[in-house]
């Protein structure tokens, strides 16, 4: 066993590693036990039903594409916002910084309610709804809900990453002939890569499993606005507990596959 490149030796070393690892073991064991309980309880006939259901397939597809769109949109906002919040001080900086964190703090269901009020009760919202920007009970609304709830994770992560990048690197880039944009693109952005990916993973995880605000803002219409998380609710609310469980396991399997893939593909260190 090694601590970075330093080997762990002696009783104190083993005690140190052992006591820290205990928390890892406890956490992972509990998570695995929960999944195992589902697997043991599950009716395999229900799994078959779920796997062959066109509606569930559609919900899976909706979950995937909406969450991917949300990630793309979030990263698109997170990189410039994270950079601005990290590098520039302006009046109201603290307020903007706090506003970014707001969706992390309040219950997601509030987002659904707020969006519903905005698009039904305010002139701007009503104008948008009647001029082609329809979100209520629409698949686009799923993306909007997911974005509002989860973009904060991407922005926060991007800001922390830019905070850690030495500003002198950008300064040197400027003296070497780069424009401000060039310095950002050639120095800061490549160095922020891992932090941005970490933020994207958090955003995706949050968006993929989102439930509360979707029920309020877009509902859960079979074959239209249903996503896997709302399927679980729908199935168990009509007494199909086995199907709900099968969908839950499908949700876990897809989420695990995606997270591991993103880490393996995106987490590799860049060699330029």
């Amino acid at each position: 066993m090694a601590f970075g490149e330093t080997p762990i030796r002696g009783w104190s070393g083993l005690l140190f590693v052992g006591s820290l690892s205990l928390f890892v073991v406890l956490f992972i064991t509990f998570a695995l036990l929960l999944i195992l309980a589902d697997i043991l309880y599950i009716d395999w006939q229900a799994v078959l039903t779920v796997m062959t259901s066109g509606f569930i397939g559609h919900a899976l597809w909706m979950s995937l594409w909406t969450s991917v769109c949300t990630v793309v949109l979030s990263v698109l906002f997170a990189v410039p916002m994270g950079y601005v919040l990290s590098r520039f001080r302006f009046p109201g900086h603290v307020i903007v910084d706090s506003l970014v964190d707001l969706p992390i703090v309040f219950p997601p269901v509030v987002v659904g309610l707020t969006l519903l009020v905005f698009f039904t009760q305010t002139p701007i919202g009503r104008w948008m709804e009647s001029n082609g920007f329809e979100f209520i009970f629409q698949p686009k609304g799923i993306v909007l809900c997911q974005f509002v709830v989860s973009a904060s994770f991407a922005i926060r992560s991007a800001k922390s990453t830019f905070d850690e990048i030495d500003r002198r690197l950008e300064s040197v880039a400027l003296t070497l002939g780069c424009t401000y944009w060039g310095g950002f693109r050639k120095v800061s952005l490549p160095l922020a890569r891992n932090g941005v990916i970490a933020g994207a993973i958090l955003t995706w995880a949050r968006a993929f499993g989102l439930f509360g605000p979707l029920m309020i803002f877009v509902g859960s219409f079979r074959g239209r606005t249903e996503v896997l998380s709302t399927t679980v609710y729908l199935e168990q609310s009509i007494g199909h507990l086995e199907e709900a469980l099968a969908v839950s396991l499908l949700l876990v399997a897809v989420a695990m596959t995606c997270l591991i893939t993103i880490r393996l593909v995106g987490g590799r260190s860049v060699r330029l």
Partner: protein
Amino acid sequence: MIQVENLYFRIGEFILNDVSLVVRQGEYFVLLGPTGSGKTLLLEALCGLRKLESGRLFINGQNVTDLEPRRRMIGYVPQDYALFPHRLVEGNIRFGLEAEKLPKSEIDRRVEEIAEQLRIRHLLNRRIEGLSGGERQQVALGRALVIQPKVLLLDEPVSALDESTRESVCGELKRIQEELGITTIHVCHQLQEAFMVADRAGILKEGSFQQIGTMEELTRKPRNRFVAEFMRCGNLQFQHGNLQQPFHIT
């Protein structure tokens, strides 16, 4: 040639106050002073990385006060070198040439040339994290020189090195500077280092120049007690507020 005219700017409590300086064409000028005296800030102002409240800056006669950093043609080696960790050594050296959008063949030729001159050809495919302090310094110097700058600004270029390496690197810096004939400002707070490279030096204290002259002038004719003490003769020669022969406060 570098001309600084009545430079003034404030950062928090610190003020760079009415600083004027002329560094002659091809001269190796050393900026001395204790930590916090404003040496780095002055270099950053020359690079265009600080906003001036007043004053003017000229490089080879051209007023660069309001020019963007990239248009000043300055080779800048900051403290700890600030090498780009996501690029190989070669990528670091190529950086400025790529920013200039030069043809690839020209970039390759100039990278080869500077690597040869600095004797770092064997490092070109190495990652930054594996380099020693001396190697990093050479790479940073190569990155700054390859763009063929009008002036070279070195911010404590050897302070991160051990004493024996420092001496040889200072010798190298002087050799390269003389070879290229490039006007250079070198920031340091080690007298030994200044003696090795300086044609002239200036001593800064709390944002103001105390004295500018050759190292000999600074040593033999310190203008005030601070300069005398900084040049390490104060404790020997300065008694009761007067500096005795052979040193004079002028």
